[in-house]
C-alpha cells in the first residue's frame, strides 16, 4: 500500500495522467492475484482443470489485447489465434523435450507466463501496425488503388510492425542480469531457490518468450485488419 501511495504521489507531483487507471490496475491486481492463488492451489490438486484455467486466461488475454488495439470481433479472433499459436508452440516444445517436468505445477505457471508475454506482443504489434498505416496512409492507399485488399495492403506494413514489437523483448533479453533482474529469477531467489536453478528457469522463460512473441507478432499483424473503424474524413480527403 505504501508503494502504491508513493507511486501515485510521484505521478501527481510529476503531473502525469492515468493516476486513476494505475489505482484501478493495482486494486485489480490485488484482487485477481488473491483469487488466482486460491484457484491455482485448487488446480494443483485437481490438475485436470488446468486446461479450463488456461482457456479462460487465453480468452482474457485476447480480449485485453484486442481492446488495446481497438479491434472488432473479427480482429479478436485473429488476436486469439496469434496468442494461442505463439504460446502453445513454446509450451509444446518445452513439454516434449522435458525441459520442464510434465505436471500442472510446472506447466501451468509457465503457460500462463507465455500467454501473458503473447498478450503484450499482440497489443504492441497490432497498435504498431495500425499506427504505421495511419502515418503512411497515402502509401496504404497506393496499394489499395492498385486492387489490393486492405489485408494485402496491410501486409506491406506487417513485417516492420512485427519487428518493432519485438524490440522490448529483445532489449529485455539482452540486458537480462545486467540492467534488470527478470521476474522469474527474482521470484525464485525470493522463494529460496539456488541461483543456478533460478537462472535455468529464467533462461527457459526468456527464450520461450522470444519464440512466443515472434510467432504472435507475425500472426497478429497478418490476421487483424490494418485499419480501424475510427477513420475520419480529414485523413482521407485532400483539398477538393
Amino acid at each position, binding site marked *: 500500500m505504501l508503494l502504491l501511495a508513493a507511486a501515485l504521489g510521484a505521478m501527481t507531483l510529476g503531473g502525469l495522467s492515468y493516476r486513476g487507471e494505475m489505482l484501478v490496475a493495482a486494486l485489480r491486481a490485488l484482487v485477481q492475484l488473491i483469487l488466482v492463488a486460491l484457484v491455482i492451489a485448487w488446480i494443483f490438486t485437481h490438475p485436470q482443470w488446468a486446461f479450463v484455467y488456461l482457456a479462460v486466461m487465453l480468452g482474457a488475454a485476447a480480449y485485453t489485447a484486442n481492446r488495446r488495439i481497438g479491434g472488432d470481433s473479427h480482429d479478436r479472433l485473429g488476436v486469439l489465434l496469434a496468442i494461442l499459436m505463439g504460446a502453445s508452440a513454446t509450451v509444446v516444445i518445452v513439454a516434449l523435450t522435458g525441459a520442464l517436468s510434465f505436471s500442472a505445477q510446472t506447466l501451468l505457471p509457465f503457460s500462463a507466463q507465455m500467454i501473458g508475454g503473447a498478450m503484450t506482443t499482440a497489443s504492441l504489434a497490432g497498435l504498431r501496425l495500425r499506427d504505421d498505416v495511419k502515418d503512411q496512409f*497515402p*502509401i496504404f*492507399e*497506393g*496499394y*489499395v*488503388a*492498385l*486492387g*489490393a*485488399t486492405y489485408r*494485402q495492403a496491410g501486409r*506491406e506494413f506487417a513485417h516492420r510492425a512485427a519487428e518493432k514489437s519485438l524490440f522490448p523483448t529483445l532489449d529485455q533479453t539482452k540486458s537480462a542480469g545486467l540492467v534488470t533482474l527478470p521476474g522469474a529469477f527474482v521470484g525464485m531467489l525470493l522463494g529460496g531457490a539456488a541461483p543456478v536453478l533460478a537462472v535455468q528457469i529464467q533462461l527457459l522463460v526468456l527464450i520461450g518468450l522470444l519464440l512466443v512473441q515472434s510467432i504472435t507478432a507475425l500472426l497478429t499483424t497478418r490476421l487483424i485488419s490494418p*485499419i480501424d*473503424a*475510427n*477513420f475520419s*474524413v480529414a485523413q*482521407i*480527403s*485532400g*483539398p*477538393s
Partner: protein
Amino acid sequence: MLPAASAFEIRELSVSYSGVPALSDISLDIPERGVSAIIGPSGSGKSTLLRTLNRMNDLVEGVRIEGRVAFRGRDLYGPDVDPTQIRRQIGMVFQKPNVFPRSIYDNVAYGPRLHHQPGNLDEIVREALVRSGLWEEVKHDLKQHAMTLSGGQQQRLVIARCIAVAPAAILMDEPTSSLDPLATVRVEELISELAADYTIVLVTHNLRQASRIADWTAFLAAERSASGVLHGRLAEVGPTSQLFTAPVDQRTKRFIAESMD
C-alpha cells in the same frame, strides 16, 4: 452529353460523410478516352466525386453513397461487385506521388505480381516505364530505391505503376499540384499522350491546366446547406473550349473570371 460513348454514367449521386453532405444530386456522363476535367472551388467535392468512381471512398468510415455510378454499363456499387476488381480496372494517381518504399522495378511490378498477371514481368515493367516516359531516365537504375527519384519522376513512376495493371481508366487527383513547373509540363504531356488509350478523369484546381489538356470539363459549384456546410453540385458540363469561352451558368462564369485573372 455523349451517352453512346460514355465510360462513366453518374446518376443522382449524393455522397455524405457521417451525415455531413459532400456532394448533392450529381448526374453526369464521362466519355470514353480523352481527358475529362472536374473543376470547382474548395468544398465543391471534386475529390469526393473522383473517389466514388473507383470506390476509394469505401476507405472512409461513415461514407454514404446514394444514386448510381456505372462504368461501361456496370453498376460500381452493385451487390455482386468486388471493389478490388474495380480499383484494378480504374486506376488512381494522387496529389503527392506516393511511391512505395522499395525499388523502381518493384514499384511497377507490385500490381502485376499481386494479380498474377500473365506475361513476362520484366517486359510489363519496361513497357509501363516506356509509356510513362521514364524508361530512358531509369533503365540503368531499376534496382534503385524509388525515393531517390525527383518529385516529377516519382509521379511518372506512380503513373507507370498504374499502367502496369492495364487499367481501362485512370483517375488523377490534382496530379501536378506538388510539382514544379517543368515537371508539371512533362506530366501534362504524358496525360495527353495516355488519353489516346485511356479514359482519364482529372481533378484540378488549375483552370489553365484544364483548358490545356482536357477535352471535356465539368464545373462543380460549392453550395452552402441550411446547416452551413459546403457541398458540391454540378453547375455545368461541356466541351472544355465551350465551357471556358462561353459558359452558360452564372456560377461558372464568375469562377472562371475570378480564377483566370
